[in-house]
């Protein structure tokens, strides 16, 4: 008895799984070959050993638990990813089955797709009907990057944003009208001859999200607290807001806000509720003529109220102070504390100043 098939024959003979011809062959093998008989005895002993193993009993009736679990799963659709019964190939990925499952869930709960559809529709409409792109006359010079002053930091930043966006750089003279088709667009295709500095890309923005790795998604912008107010240009140039921050030990970021938050100007503007063309970002806006300035501060609990109170306490410099709190906490992981932060990092707040060139009207009663 030398070959494997003889071994298997004896094994199957032991199990009574041979047809008549095979059984006859096995019996001849046993008669002619003593080693075959020895192997059969060993296999028989092995089988007896296994069959004599003690039986495990569950010790409980699973029937009620099973039916409850099945009913719960059916009713609440809490059927976590589980193997499908009796598949030919267990564990195999089945795109059709997955598709059917998703379709069933949508059928059972159609509302689950309503909000994503609304968001997509609004986003598409915004892309198509962007007023700055469609209507050159609307908004005037104070709403368009092309109308920003050519010299000064603000203009440089505007150009930085354009470069980052890959847009054609426009440097019009002050007040010069630029045709809509010549204006930079946040969705412009990157020009091959304009290679943005990576830090510019992150700090000052651009519309190409793929260029800024690890940047928080637009959804995470909703996690920022935003304080908004109107300010006189003089107050901003003198950085009157610093009094409020210094008196309350509030850390003010000295770095460009976009760089710290890894946001593009468009995202920052969106978070701040201002037009991107009005934007100047950072604490040093004294030599520029922006329409809006965004600062980033880090506050401990209770300090937001102090900022509000501090700004309201200077009505000749700041007024219409308001706050917008996030509906949901930020989804991205918190960044390290700002340099010089005296209190434990608790919350980051955007402070947005919209500049009024005219003298601020005194609030009633003041």
């Amino acid at each position, binding site marked *: 008895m030398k070959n*494997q098939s003889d*071994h*298997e024959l004896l*094994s*199957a003979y032991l*199990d009574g*799984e041979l047809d008549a011809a095979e059984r006859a062959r096995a019996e001849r093998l046993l008669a002619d070959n003593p080693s075959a008989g020895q192997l059969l005895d*060993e*296999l028989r*002993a*092995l*089988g007896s*050993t*296994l*069959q*004599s*193993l*003690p*039986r*495990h*009993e*569950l*010790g409980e*009736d*699973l*029937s*009620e*638990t*099973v*039916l409850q*679990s*099945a009913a719960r*799963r*059916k009713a609440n659709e809490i*059927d976590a990813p*589980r*193997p*499908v*019964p*009796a*598949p*030919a*190939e*267990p*564990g195999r990925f089945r795109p059709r089955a997955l598709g059917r499952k998703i379709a069933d869930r949508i059928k059972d709960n159609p509302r689950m797709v309503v909000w994503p559809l609304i968001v997509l529709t609004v986003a598409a409409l915004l892309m198509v009907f962007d007023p700055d792109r469609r209507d050159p006359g609307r908004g005037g010079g104070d709403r368009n990057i092309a109308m920003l002053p050519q010299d000064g930091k603000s203009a440089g930043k505007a150009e930085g944003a354009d470069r980052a966006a890959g847009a054609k750089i426009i440097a019009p003279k002050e007040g010069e009208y630029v045709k809509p088709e010549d204006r930079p667009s946040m969705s412009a295709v990157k020009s091959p001859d304009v290679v943005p500095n990576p830090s510019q890309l992150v700090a000052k923005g651009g519309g190409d999200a793929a260029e800024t790795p690890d940047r928080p998604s637009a959804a995470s912008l909703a996690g920022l607290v935003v304080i908004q107010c109107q300010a006189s240009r003089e107050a901003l140039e003198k950085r009157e807001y610093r009094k409020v921050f210094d008196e309350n030990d509030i850390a003010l970021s000295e770095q460009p806000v976009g760089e710290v938050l890894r946001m593009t100007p468009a995202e920052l503007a969106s978070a701040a509720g201002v037009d991107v063309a009005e934007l100047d970002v950072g604490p040093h806006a004294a030599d520029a003529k922006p329409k809006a300035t965004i600062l980033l501060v880090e506050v401990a609990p209770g300090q937001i109220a102090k900022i509000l109170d501090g700004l309201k306490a200077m009505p000749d410099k700041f007024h219409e102070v308001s706050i917008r709190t996030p509906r949901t906490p930020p989804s991205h992981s918190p960044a390290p504390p700002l340099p010089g932060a005296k209190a434990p990092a608790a919350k980051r707040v955007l402070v947005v100043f919209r500049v009024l060139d005219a003298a601020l009207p005194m609030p009633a009663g003041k």
Partner: protein
Amino acid sequence: MSDDLELIAEILKGRTAAFENLVRKYQDRLFNSVAYMVGNVEDARDIVQEAFVQAFLNLRTFQGTSAFYTWLYRIAFNVAATERRRKRPKISVERGRDRTGREPIDGQPGPAERVEREERGRRVRQGLSQLSEEHRAVLVLREIDGCRYETIAEILGLPIGTIRSRLHRARLELREELKNALID
């Protein structure tokens, strides 16, 4: 088998309580095999329960071309395969006796014989645990559950010829593992 089909027909008509009879009928048999298959009783209990839940939820797909138990066993094996990929064994059959399930039924032998049996059982379980999963599966199905080749082939989704050769190789492998025990 015809009893099972009648119960299934009742369940599909809406009398879901009839499924309790199927659970009670097969839970211990399935649990015993799965416990030897996966090597720990806690996982075995969870797998058996999940197999029954899935069987209930997918009962309409059961076409009756095989025995209900074969179909159930196949579900249990798939559940076990998924669980095995997901986590490592927690408690072995050896250590799990007092944790879940009853101690294996062992007749009423005398103290010396009981000690000897327990030792032999321990070594066999140890030997089984050393086998590859595919070898352990065919051995458990054949020797512990008593399935015929055709049933094993249905459960594992393999040709009978493969079952035959695999079973023999599994026996030889276990024989090597247990050589000392068999000498006794």
